[in-house]
């Protein structure tokens, strides 16, 4: 009998601080599996966001750097430009990446920085207690959209993958969901691909992961999964939006 599934080696044995059923944990595992797969843990630097994943340095076996809120892409640029031999990824929430850090992600993408970006879109500011995010769906109640997100005053949920795919500088842009095993396995492939692109010096790779925040959605983990499937996926379609051929 063989162990066919285990905690990846690139993650330590700590109990994670995430809420029960929060899919940040799955996202962590997928990244760690990619590091394991390519054997790059020892030469990787992860850039942590400010958001629920700020503590990710407590879990990963690779080096991790804390970036100011929204700035991971700039920080990652600084790293990769000065140590092109290292593998660099940023891991960011939707507040971090799509709101305060929008200029940084678009410009890193546009410059075609040879980095990998993991974007965890849970349509809410998890860490600060459930405020509206740029990805919050229309009508969704949050603590700062108490009457539901209103397109007239709050604008539209922003689709980052689509937007970044329009930039010449991006090489791989995809959206996946962490809602069911089949999609998680697709997500895994996407993350692998994203690191593979970097290893092949193909430039900027981006994986948007539709994720849950049971706590701030006010739902049980399984209800949250259902919401992800029924509300998020229809607005944020899954798929590969851009994939440059490896030459």
């Amino acid at each position, binding site marked *: 009998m063989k162990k066919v599934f285990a905690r990846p080696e690139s993650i330590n044995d700590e109990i994670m601080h995430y809420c029960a059923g929060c899919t940040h944990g799955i996202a962590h595992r997928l990244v760690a599996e990619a590091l394991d797969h390519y054997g790059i843990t*020892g030469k990787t*630097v992860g850039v942590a966001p400010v958001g629920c994943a700020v503590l990710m*340095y407590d879990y990963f076996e690779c*080096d991790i750097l804390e970036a100011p809120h929204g700035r991971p892409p*700039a920080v990652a640029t*600084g*790293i990769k430009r000065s140590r092109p031999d290292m593998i660099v990824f940023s891991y960011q929430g939707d507040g971090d990446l799509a709101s305060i850090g929008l200029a940084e992600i678009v*410009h890193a993408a546009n410059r075609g920085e040879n980095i990998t970006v993991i974007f965890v879109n849970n349509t809410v500011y998890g860490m600060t207690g459930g405020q509206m995010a740029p990805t919050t769906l229309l009508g969704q109640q949050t603590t700062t959209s108490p009457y539901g997100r209103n397109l007239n005053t709050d604008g539209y949920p922003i689709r980052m993958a689509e937007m970044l795919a329009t930039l010449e500088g991006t090489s791989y842009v995809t959206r996946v969901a962490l809602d069911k095993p089949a999609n998680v396995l697709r997500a895994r492939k996407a993350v692998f691909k994203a690191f593979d692109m970097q290893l092949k010096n193909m430039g900027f790779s981006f994986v948007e992961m539709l994720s849950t925040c049971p706590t701030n959605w006010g739902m049980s983990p399984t209800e949250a999964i259902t919401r992800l499937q029924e509300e998020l996926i229809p607005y944020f379609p899954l798929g590969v939006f851009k994939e440059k051929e490896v030459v």
Partner: protein
Amino acid sequence: MSDNTRILVKGNDALAMGAIKAGCKHYFGYPITPQNEVPEFMSRELPKIGGEFVQAESELAAINMVLGASAVGIRSMTSSSSPGISLMQEGLSYMAGQELPGVVINVVRCGPGLGGIAASQGDYFQAVKGGGHGDYHLIVLAPSSVQEMYDHTMLAFELSDKYRNPAMVLADAVLGQMQEPIVEREQAPEPPPKMWALDGADGRPARHLKSLLLKEGELEAHNMLLQEKYREIEKHEVRFDEYRIEDAELVVAAFGTAARIAKTAVGQARKEGMKVGLFRPVTVYPYPKKRLAGISERVKDFLVVEMNTGQMLEDVKLNVAGDAQVSFYGRPGGGIPTPNEVLKRIRKYYPGQAESNVQSPLWQTQGRQSPKLENKRGT
């Protein structure tokens, strides 16, 4: 090229040359007058030596690129001018909190707001009291010649690495734009390996660099360690310059460009028989507190000259003896005090001396009040 070959160089170019001599091959920056020569120089020269020039999308991005490069152990820098430096305050606070080295150059222009592109020293407070949030310090060097623009940039890299703390060169538009002969220095030795750098966890436990410290008491303890470091810096890295201070009855205190201007005034005053000296802090953080306190045991009159409304003034007042009298002459918003204006203030201490026929400073010719000459301290 022998060491004695002098070359005529613009201050901003000297900064960039010094950086490269310090081993900096990575520059991240965003254009802003009056320091554009720095990114322009870097974009030209770094590719030649295998370095990287990245024009960041903003100053915010630039300081965070420096943060990233620094975290993996690479010497890097950014440069900007006042409004751009204001945008870096969050990043600087993070770097200080994470104990990351890195060099930031502020070629100060006049403010507040968009202001203008003329020289000013209006960012002194921001540089030395911490423009960002929390209790931290930058190491701040205040050059007053093109040679020092070069040398201080090299020194900034050295100190920054030594103390794992961001360092700033606080220049101004006069220093950035003027040309003077300089002597180039030897290439700086490679800094010792950075045992804290995120250079890959191969063969060692993973490292992380962060400023978030959530366990009870952890952040307070970290702050105490930072404060201990600052005490170390204050003990070992104070630098200042003096001119004819031995028998002075009046000491003019000034930094950077204002100090040069004051020096001419002091020289002239000496010629006229007035016993005046000049005290010039070279490091404005750490501030030469002890030396100033020492001088003030004998000298009881100080005149602070700045290109602002009185910022270093506070550090002078804080550090001279309680019975010393400190007055101030300054011009904000791009006004540059002239040697004659300073001389006029010096003459006030010598009622016997004839008034000079110098032009009045702007605020007098415009019928405005001068920023009121501060009364002697404590009265």
